[in-house]
């Protein structure tokens, strides 16, 4: 019997992350709107983490040829796409009241959108190749190449003149945040990371189930094919 998806655990963690964002103090400049950053930034962090895991798992697959690495890469890329979409959406609804627009062709926003579509392409590539080994090999190559966008997204705020502010936590110099804000941020970061890990484990198990189902169907088809072809083979 395969393990169930830990629905309750994820919902509790999610609830706690949202509460952490709500109990954080009000910002002197942005007011309550700054609370949106307690979900926007951790979602962006999880997207980075997910694509980083896809990179490691892709290298792992190419080195060892073990299917388990390919499953981790696929599962993590899917989660990365979900969290990137969430990051973009949360940024848009923060941007409207603060910047006055939902979207602008700023370097950070544009590079994030490009990254989203490239990993969406990664998922499409996986669906377009029926052979498991070919799919795993080609996806692993794309999973490695696609990571080149991650530093572009992260450092775009330094490399180009952008509307988007520089990083708050993942920055080369000192973190400039008051402790109450920092604590709320770190709690949300930790909870989002745990949510990612739990979802990843559940998604990897589904990948394994998919492989099992495909193998079972292929075996049954071969057996059925033998049963049909045997009499014909006897006559010829």
């Amino acid at each position: 019997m395969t393990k169930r998806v830990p629905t309750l655990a994820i919902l509790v963690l999610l609830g706690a992350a949202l509460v952490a964002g709500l109990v954080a103090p009000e910002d002197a400049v942005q007011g309550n709107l700054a609370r949106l950053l307690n979900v926007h930034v951790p979602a962006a962090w999880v997207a980075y983490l997910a694509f980083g895991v896809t990179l490691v798992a892709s290298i792992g697959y190419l080195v060892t040829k073990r299917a388990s690495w390919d499953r981790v890469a696929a599962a993590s890329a899917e989660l990365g796409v979900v969290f990137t979409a969430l990051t973009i959406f949360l940024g848009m609804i923060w941007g409207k009241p603060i910047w006055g627009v939902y979207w602008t062709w700023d370097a950070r926003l544009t590079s994030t959108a490009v990254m989203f579509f490239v990993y969406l392409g990664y998922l499409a590539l996986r669906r377009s190749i029926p052979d498991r080994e070919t799919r795993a090999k080609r996806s692993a190559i794309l999973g490695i190449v696609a990571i080149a966008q991650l530093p572009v997204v992260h450092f775009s705020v330094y490399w180009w003149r952008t509307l988007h502010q520089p990083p708050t936590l993942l920055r080369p110099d000192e973190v400039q945040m008051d402790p109450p804000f920092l604590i709320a941020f770190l709690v949300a970061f930790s909870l989002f990371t745990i949510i990612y890990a739990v979802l990843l484990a559940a998604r990897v198990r589904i990948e394994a189930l998919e492989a099992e189902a495909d193998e079972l169907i292929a075996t049954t088809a071969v057996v059925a094919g033998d049963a049909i072809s045997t009499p014909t083979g006897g006559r010829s």
Partner: protein
Amino acid sequence: MSDWGWVALGFAATGITIGAYLGSLVYRRRSLLQRIEAVRSQDSA
């Protein structure tokens, strides 16, 4: 919209996105188990 309205929208979007993804995992797992079970029972019949 008020500041709290935007905050509520953002938090609701977060909950709905993660909740919907979670729901999709539960659904996919259930369908796969049913598919495996159907193939096995067909095979043994």
